[in-house]
């Protein structure tokens, strides 16, 4: 009930879904509707609680070939299973936009790589990331070696897993992070 109140009151004020300044609303709404035209209504004034399932969202051309597509959609979904409402959809593309602030991108990148959602990137998370990146080109010994060395390099507080501040510190030294962590829509 409370959620409906929030969305409903904001809808009534603006008469269309709230969109951030970062990506134009018209484009996002038409793309969202394209995913599931039978589900998504043209008019949002009646506050529909519509969520497009994960399988339809990862079929988008921008995400289809991305090895992290499932994780990205899960991170921005409310229920954690990848079903995005329109607000979540807008959040996703705003965070991944070109002009999105560095801090925001860092936070969401951390969430995406944190597979088990314990607020730390542990060796297992890194192993899964690496496997998705290289798709089996590296041998298991090489994968273990890379994960160990990466944790060794980036871990500052010595708990053999990467906390958010470790991650943030490492990202600040990577000049290409901002331009790489960007999905064009």
């Amino acid at each position, binding site marked *: 009930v409370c959620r409906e109140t929030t969305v409903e009151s904001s809808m009534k004020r603006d008469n269309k879904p709230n969109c951030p300044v970062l990506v*134009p609303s018209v484009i996002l709404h038409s793309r969202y509707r394209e995913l599931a035209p039978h589900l998504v209504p043209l008019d949002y004034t009646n506050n529909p609680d519509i969520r497009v399932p994960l399988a339809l969202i990862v079929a988008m051309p921008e995400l289809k070939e991305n090895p992290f597509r499932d994780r990205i959609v899960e991170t921005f979904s409310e229920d954690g299973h990848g079903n995005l409402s329109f607000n979540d959809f807008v959040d996703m593309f705003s965070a991944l936009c070109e002009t999105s602030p560095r801090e925001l991108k860092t936070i969401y990148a951390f969430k995406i790589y944190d597979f088990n959602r314990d607020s730390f990137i542990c060796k297992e998370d890194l192993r899964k990331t690496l496997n998705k990146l290289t798709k089996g080109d590296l041998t298991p010994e090489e994968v273990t070696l890379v994960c160990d060395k990466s944790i060794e390099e980036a871990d500052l507080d010595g708990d053999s897993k990467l906390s958010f501040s470790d991650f943030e510190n490492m990202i600040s030294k990577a000049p290409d*992070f901002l331009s790489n962590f960007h999905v064009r829509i």
Partner: protein
Amino acid sequence: MQLRRRRQSRPAIRDFSRSARPSIRGYGMEVDSTDAEVSKRDRLVNNLQNLSVSDRVRMLRGMPLSVAEKSELSQIPCCSQLKYYIIIGARHSWYSWLNFLHSLQLWQVALKTVSGRFGTGVLSYFLFLKTLLFFNFFLFLVTGAFMVLPQAVHPPVLPAGRSSFSGLELLTGAGYFSDTVMYYGYYSNYTLRKSCRDDGGVQNVSLSNGTRLDCVSKHLSYNMPLAYFFTIGVAFFITCIILVYSMSKSFGQSFRIDKSHSILAMKVLCSWDFKVIKKTSVKLMSENISTQLKELLAEVNQKHVKNTACQKLWRLMVHGLAWTICIGSTTACVLKLQQSSRIADNNLLLTEASLLALPVVVSLINLLLPGLFNLAAWMEDYESPSVRTYVAICRNLMLKVSVLGLLCYHWLGRVAADPEDIGLKCWESFVGQELYRFLLMDFIFTLLDTLFGEFLWRLKVLKRRRKPVFDIARNVLELIYGQTLAWLGVLFTPLLPAVQIIKLFLLFYIKKSSVMMNCQAPRKPYRVSQMTTVFITLLCFPSFLGASVCVTITMWSITPSSSCGPFRELKTMFQAGKRWVEELEKDNPNLSVLARAHSYLVENPFFLFVGAGIFLIVIYFHSQVVDGQRKIISLLQEQIENVRHHLNTVYTALCNYEDNYKTN
């Protein structure tokens, strides 16, 4: 209304409190009991109320809350209903304006296609092209509005015997075009005024400098020489400011103070380019990353193999040989150019087609010599691809700088110094035409190179199995070379920016279709932000600086031709400004202060030296500050290490103590 936060199943970031922004410490995303949530949210709301609107917006942008929540929080201010609706209305119109702008964005779809297939590296070339297009558009607007338009509306009396239009003009720029608004020679050296109405059939009354006719002066007048001088000066000044600003911004983004130790971690977590969407490119990118990871592992694990003295000597010899070849070939070409330019001078007015000889030779040199440099680099066999790219850029740059330097010396030092010797009445128009020809030939040769280099692969003439790779560095250097020519030529050919705009526009589509059809994604890693900074720096320093130095020398010390152009009868172009100040002083003696200030500050080179000196001191000071910050960061990192070591020792000691205590 009690705001209840809905249950979050998103992971909590417990370390949020370490953020530097004190106002959001403790307002983390923890899934606590609902009461704690509510009180935290109220605190956040209160805090936000105290900030100004722009601060609030900025803070909210960086917080990982959903859009609905952000809109809730940002609309909290305790303003009246009317103000509230005004704000909503303003936001509506702002969003619709942004939607409109977004749909207008030039080449949005094309850029997305290229980045989807080739990644950020090749995209940076096309973005650079777009930047250059905007620079030229700005130049075109300024020169068009203040120089071309007024002169086109008040055409001067032209000499008899103008040649008619034949197709060759488009290539040579001479003939019919030489007496049009395109070149310097067309512009009048008097103040343009509207024609006299009461004077019967006299149209476009021309006035010489000092005297006045009675019928005019009610309408606006336009001092052409002054306008010409100031427009060029102001255009260059504004371009300089924009260039320095974009250079510093790009530098700030790519410059990292600390030499990074976390190479592997960065490669794993930061190297995936999310823009790439084509399946084959994605596969290629993951292969690249695997290869790079394997190389990094090998580097980290094994010790560096030391070369024996003999091997070192051999490598030194190979490098020396390669550099000798490059420098030698460059010098030989430059000397040959010097000879041919002298010959071209003597045969100048022979045929119009022979005017094209020099541009063709220069373009050929620019095309073939980089191939030779590539061969030399292949012989040298660099291990690190970034070193190889930098060496290639250096050699290319050396070639282009020497060629352009020689051409400038030829035009300003020989042609301008003694134009009657060669039989020229108007040397500025001639130089303008030369620059037009060079620009055009550069475009035609780029076109031919694209056709033969890339399209020919399709016909399998060269029997290569792999598709050619798009050489980003070489293409960007060619763009910079073209832009230098355009900047050199603005003084002599005010319409040259328009030619450059057309050229860049066509080049975009040609290069895009060639890349999409014929090239494969680059295999070597490409550090985009560093390269973009290097290119903007190259655009600013050798290119723009060289062009502005040439233009300044022309305006300051070279005698303009006496029979054409807006500065005839003056000793230097700079005198136009001086003469205007003198006229002002004559008309209004109160402005003598201005005249004296002008003569002391602007004409005296001492002032410029002092200004440049202050500028250099400021730069030195800032670089020292950056150095100091770097030292502080390394000291702090050492401290962190020490504290960690210390804590480990204490922890181990405590564990031992506990064990001992338990056993006893």
